[in-house]
């Protein structure tokens, strides 16, 4: 309403400029948090090192340029293949590894996902990126197991096991879509990866977190549609 008049819809008097700005800022916060399905703003994040982040983004961009099927990360602007008016909100999630228990032969990596996203989205694709540093002159075998907590959360079961033959240093990828998809139904969505490596190998999880070869998972998720059509 113009100054001095009443709003024809709500009957409120026009707000003073300062008050109006406060109201609009509060509205902006509320609207963004609601659309991101967040009850409140996340507390101070622990960002990965800049080098790890740039390496991951570079890796994804390289992946995107030679596999158009997987659109990759951080596209500029809206998702082009969604019809106007039909957009289902999509998320691209980049989760860096956290170290778990390890022995000379096996290393555990943990990848966490937020409960809010897990509860309101469904996974379309998820890929695990691992970097192997100079394994030696001969090709070596590595076993990668995806572990999942059982419903009681007391034990873990092997969701899948993959044998990998690593011949030279570099990045390798593994499809972990089904494992992450089943996580998204659980209370604490955390993917655990067990790597069984030859005795004399160094761990693929760099002890120095600022290292640019930190393993990561990139997942593409889509908001669940609010209603489901049931077939009778």
């Amino acid at each position, binding site marked *: 309403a113009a100054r001095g008049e009443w709003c024809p819809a709500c009957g409120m008097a026009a707000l003073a400029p300062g008050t109006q700005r406060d109201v609009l800022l509060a509205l*902006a*916060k509320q609207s963004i948090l609601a659309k991101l399905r967040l009850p409140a703003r996340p*507390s101070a*994040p*622990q960002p990965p090192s800049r080098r790890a982040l740039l390496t991951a983004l570079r890796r994804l961009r390289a992946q995107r340029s030679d596999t158009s099927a997987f659109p990759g990360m951080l596209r500029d602007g809206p998702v082009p293949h969604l019809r106007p008016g039909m957009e289902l909100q999509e998320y691209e999630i980049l989760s860096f590894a956290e170290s778990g228990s390890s022995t000379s032969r096996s290393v555990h990596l943990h990848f966490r996902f937020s409960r809010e996203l897990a509860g309101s989205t469904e996974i379309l694709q998820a890929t695990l990126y691992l970097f192997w540093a100079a394994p030696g002159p001969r090709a070596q075998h590595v076993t990668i197991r995806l572990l999942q907590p059982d419903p009681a959360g007391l034990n873990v079961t092997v969701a899948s096991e993959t044998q990998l033959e690593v011949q030279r240093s570099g990045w390798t990828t593994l499809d972990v879509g089904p494992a992450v998809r089943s996580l998204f139904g659980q209370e604490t969505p955390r993917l655990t990866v067990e790597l069984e490596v030859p005795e004399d190998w160094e761990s693929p999880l760099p002890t120095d977190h600022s290292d640019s070869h930190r393993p990561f998972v990139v997942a593409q998720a889509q908001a669940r549609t609010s209603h489901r059509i049931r077939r009778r």
Partner: protein
Amino acid sequence: GVDCGGDSRMCCRQEFFVDFKEIGWEDWIIQPEGYHMNYCAGLCPLHMAGIPGLAASFHTAVLNRIKAASAAAAVDSCCVPTQRRPLSLLYYDRDSNIVKTDIPDMIVDSCGCT
């Protein structure tokens, strides 16, 4: 659409920029630096109904009949967004994962009278 400015009281798009640094959100929102929460404000008297934008897709003849029929009731139309676009956000979630999403229909590009 018309951007608000000057002293016209007709339906227009009012620009409003929320600086994330100003509201203390710059630590968890990586990009962009702020949000253009533009909104529509202003009057839509009867002779403005359907000008410009949203109502332009109505059959003008029908609309004129409605105008004529409701002239006595002096019913105004509403000032609403006619074009919107997504807000692309890159942010840390509470597990410090990096998330990118496009929230549809968050930025008003133009306004018009229904």
